[in-house]
């Protein structure tokens, strides 16, 4: 009797399709987490370990203002070099957005809208409306126009491209605001770090919603109102978050039996900024994943 070894047929190996672009959400997560860690380290150093002289506030504040740009270059710009299909023009979007923030939007907000004269003293509802229609819209339209004009025609290839370019615009925009703040009124290192994280979060989180709207408008051909709805929502989120944060973080003045004052709670402000940034990232990521899944199903249906 002859026996032979059973002949086995190897199952076909499913090859993973190569993703040719740099991973945007991974870059964003690394960027946000490392900025949060840097902020916490600055706070611990300044509050408990170091006694920093006031004369060093300006250079330190300037350095802190530039940290987000460095982290963005490290986690978002550098990986593009290793990608098969790198995104072009990210640095241009970053730079133009920063120039627009410093040269156009900030003068409009301070010189024309003069928000410092009327918004901080207004009641909560007026502040929400004011921060939405004045500041939120001014910020978002600036970033939107930069991304729309520089990338729409030739640089947007997938939905994630719009998120990558909006991130570049948001970080560039916030960096310009942070540099201006550092030069005008340099705060103590911990306060400067908290302010920098807040500016980044309040620039990036609404920007991601606009990025989602841009991506959908570019690749899904949705209702013509989707983009403006996402834009309005982004401005509203900025307005609500800014007004609520100042209410919750700033020191209060309470008249209960005797005059009491409370200290500001910057850690609480940092927590609000972090929740806004990471929460919005998760929401937008799931919206984009859902849109891509829907599109894949449609494509598969057409193929059958």
């Amino acid at each position, binding site marked *: 009797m002859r026996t032979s070894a059973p002949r086995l047929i190897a199952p076909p190996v499913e090859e993973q399709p190569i993703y040719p672009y740099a991973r945007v959400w991974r870059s964003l997560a690394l960027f946000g987490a490392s900025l949060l860690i840097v902020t916490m380290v600055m706070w611990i150093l300044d509050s408990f370990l170091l006694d920093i002289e006031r004369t060093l506030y300006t250079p330190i504040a300037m350095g802190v203002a530039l940290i987000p740009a460095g982290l963005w270059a490290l986690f978002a710009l550098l990986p593009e070099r290793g990608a098969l299909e790198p995104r072009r023009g990210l640095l241009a979007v970053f730079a133009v957005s920063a120039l627009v923030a410093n040269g156009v939007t900030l003068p409009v907000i301070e010189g024309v*809208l*003069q928000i410092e004269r009327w918004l901080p003293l207004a009641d909560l509802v007026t502040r929400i409306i004011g921060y939405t229609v*004045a500041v939120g819209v001014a910020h978002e*339209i600036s970033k939107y126009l930069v991304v729309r004009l520089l990338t729409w025609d*030739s640089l947007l290839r997938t939905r994630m491209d719009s998120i990558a370019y909006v991130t570049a615009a948001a970080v560039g925009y916030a960096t310009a605001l942070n540099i201006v703040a550092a030069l005008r009124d340099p705060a103590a290192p911990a306060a400067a770090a908290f302010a920098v994280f807040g500016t980044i979060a309040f620039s990036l989180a609404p920007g991601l919603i606009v990025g989602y709207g841009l991506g959908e408008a570019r690749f899904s*051909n949705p209702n*013509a109102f989707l*983009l403006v709805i996402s*834009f309005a929502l982004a401005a509203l989120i900025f307005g609500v978050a800014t007004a609520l944060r100042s209410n919750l973080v700033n020191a209060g003045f309470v008249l209960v039996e005797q005059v009491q004052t409370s200290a500001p709670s910057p850690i609480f402000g940092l927590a609000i900024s972090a929740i806004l940034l990471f929460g919005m990232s998760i929401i937008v990521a799931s919206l984009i994943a859902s849109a891509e899944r829907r599109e894949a199903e449609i494509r598969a249906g057409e193929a059958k």
Partner: protein
Amino acid sequence: MTTSTNNIPAIVEIGRTEARDTLRQRWSNYFVLIYAAVCLIIAINLRDSILNATVRYSDVATGIRANYPANWLVDDDGDYVFQVRDASRVGFKTAIIVDVQPLGLATTTRNLLDALSLDRAQTLSGYRTLEIDETYILPDGSTGTAMLYTYVNAEVNPVLQTFPTIVEGLDVIAVRQEQAIIVTFLADARTFDEERPIFERFLNALEF
């Protein structure tokens, strides 16, 4: 690119191929721009309505009624009818002071101005009269007198460690029934011109 027979480029086409937007994409962009423009208009209106909001003040004893800016603090405990101050301002608090002085038969507006100047020169540091306009046109069309002056205001609380502020002041004097109404506007000299419209609006609505 096309080439002629001797391999020299004849026509060079320069340009990029652009994907044409669909109608929806174009309109979605327009809607964003329209929305931003509408919000900007709303923001300017909101700013004006808050900055120009006023509160009514009336003093029965002197018959003075005025609309002063909302959020300013009113004070009628001093040697004047009342004063309102912008307490939210950092540094010197912009103020409008209304006072009434009786005028004798022999007393002229000029005498009143001289008395004010003499008094201020003794109490205010670096007091200087800059200009006197005796043909100042009041909001009701009548003629009054205006005096522009300056002085240095030093913070009385040494703990605050602030630099002295150069203050610019404007007195507008109107005479009614042997009484001189003196309306004074005081502001940091750097912001005096910027804030003067507030005073003009106050003056326009002042009734006495």
